[in-house]
């Protein structure tokens, strides 16, 4: 997915003079060709994440469309106040593109992980959040984001589904049955495998914010299970708001709050958080 982001953004920089890219050393090398072609619009500020987002705010104030990229813990957690004030409070936007969201940087440890990025953005107004489940979903999301001035977060991960799903800014129904299971981004395939043979409806989205409230309301009969690749319960408030007045039971699955002080790979961490197919099947079965 990172390579798709690099290719698409390089092309956007060539096509649209309004587009700018702000980096803080992360991924600077693969963007070197773009930086040589557009030295005024590809800006690497060094290892300075507060400045990275401040610069994006300044660029947006002059009418440009900044893309900002780093590891999620540095892009969102570290520079949260810049995201809040230098973008939101200034009434300007940017496209923040992260890698290493939850536990992709498994061997690097907790310093390089941000399971709480989407929850942090949920404290702020006006953010659209994309969590693509396949690299082929990425280019359209980025190209759409280049065309306006709103605040957009694109969360790129290493885990991918076998196939891409387009127009997934709303809930797409992939299997029709009983209780609703909503899979966000790369957790679709594990959800499909976990619920094989179960009488459930499986819906997919790569755009959890704004949550497709109408779709969720239409698909929910009594039970709803949210499966998200970031902090468990991040969407609890949005689901509750969407289902206001409808009697329902809800289960929220995602990354646990407790730090897993182990290394390994993202697959190991998915298993540790119960987000592999076996873990999901156990949790969903117990709930239903």
């Amino acid at each position, binding site marked *: 997915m990172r390579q798709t982001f690099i290719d698409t953004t390089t092309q956007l920089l060539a096509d649209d003079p309004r587009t700018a890219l702000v980096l803080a050393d992360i991924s600077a090398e693969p963007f070197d060709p773009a930086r040589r072609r557009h030295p005024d619009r590809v800006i690497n500020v060094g290892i300075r994440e507060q400045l990275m987002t401040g610069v994006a705010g300044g660029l947006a*104030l002059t009418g440009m469309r900044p893309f900002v990229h780093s590891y999620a813990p540095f892009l969102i957690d570290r520079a949260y106040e810049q995201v809040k004030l230098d973008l939101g409070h200034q009434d300007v936007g940017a496209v923040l593109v992260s890698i290493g969201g939850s536990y992709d940087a498994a061997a690097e440890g907790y310093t390089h992980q941000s399971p709480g990025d989407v929850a942090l953005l949920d404290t702020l107004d006006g953010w659209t959040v994309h969590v693509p489940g396949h690299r082929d979903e990425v280019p359209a999301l980025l190209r759409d984001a280049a065309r306006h001035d709103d605040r957009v977060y694109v969360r790129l991960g290493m885990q991918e589904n076998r196939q891409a799903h387009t127009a997934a800014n709303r809930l797409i129904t992939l299997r029709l049955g009983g209780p609703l299971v909503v899979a966000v981004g790369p957790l679709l395939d594990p959800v499909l495998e976990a619920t094989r043979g179960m009488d459930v409806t499986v819906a997919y989205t790569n755009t959890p914010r704004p949550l497709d409230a109408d779709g969720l309301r239409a698909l929910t009969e009594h039970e709803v299970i949210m499966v998200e690749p970031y902090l468990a319960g991040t969407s609890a408030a949005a689901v509750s708001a969407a289902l206001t007045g409808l009697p329902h039971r809800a289960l929220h699955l995602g990354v646990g709050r407790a730090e897993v002080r182990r290394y390994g790979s993202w697959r190991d961490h998915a298993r540790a958080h119960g987000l592999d197919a076996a873990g999901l099947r156990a949790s969903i079965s117990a709930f239903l």
Partner: protein
Amino acid sequence: MNFNLQPILMTVTAMHTDRLRPLLRRLTGDEKHAPSAHSTLDVLWVLYDRVLRVSPETADDPGRDRFLLSKGHGPAAYYAVLAAKGFIPESALDDLGGWDSPLGHHPDRVRIPGVEVGTGSLGHGLGLAVGTALGLRAQGFQDTRTFVLVGDAELDEGSNHEAIAYAGATRLPLTAIVIDNQSATHGWPGGIAARFVGWDVAIVDGHDHGEIECALQNTHDRPNLVIATVEKKGS
């Protein structure tokens, strides 16, 4: 500064003070951060009266000069100057911080014409100014200048130093004004200028309009720091 010019400059200072005093009085009845408001008065007046190419009519012109008040505390002087220059009606000064007022104890760009950034939390203006200067350059506004005003205590915030180091290393043309009223709790041993590596530096009397204007009008091919020294906070 030519000694013979001093009496003339003092006269100019007195003229503006007379004009702004009633405006300030409308604001400062119970306004917080009053000392820091007045430390910026002369610099702000010189900026808007002599330096900035911006007016109420050109406040949205993409090629206008940019002034970013990073030190959003104590904006009374800022509001008084904006009123004197016609960006906001003088009547707005009477209800500072009120429910129906556009003027808060920290300025909000969305509410006040001519205000480039909303500030208050310290340490945000320099980064925004760096991005503004980069954005103007990328769009070919070669003659548009970017100014940002920070306080000496504000420099305690680490975010400033990310911007200072980057601007110095990349020779980014923008002008930072530090109002030095010695209000940083632990001071700046070795001087404020020593923190601005790669910048041109001028230290001026923060009440001397001629000195202030001269330092702000000079053209530079790298970032420019103007330290405007005023009386110690609380003195």
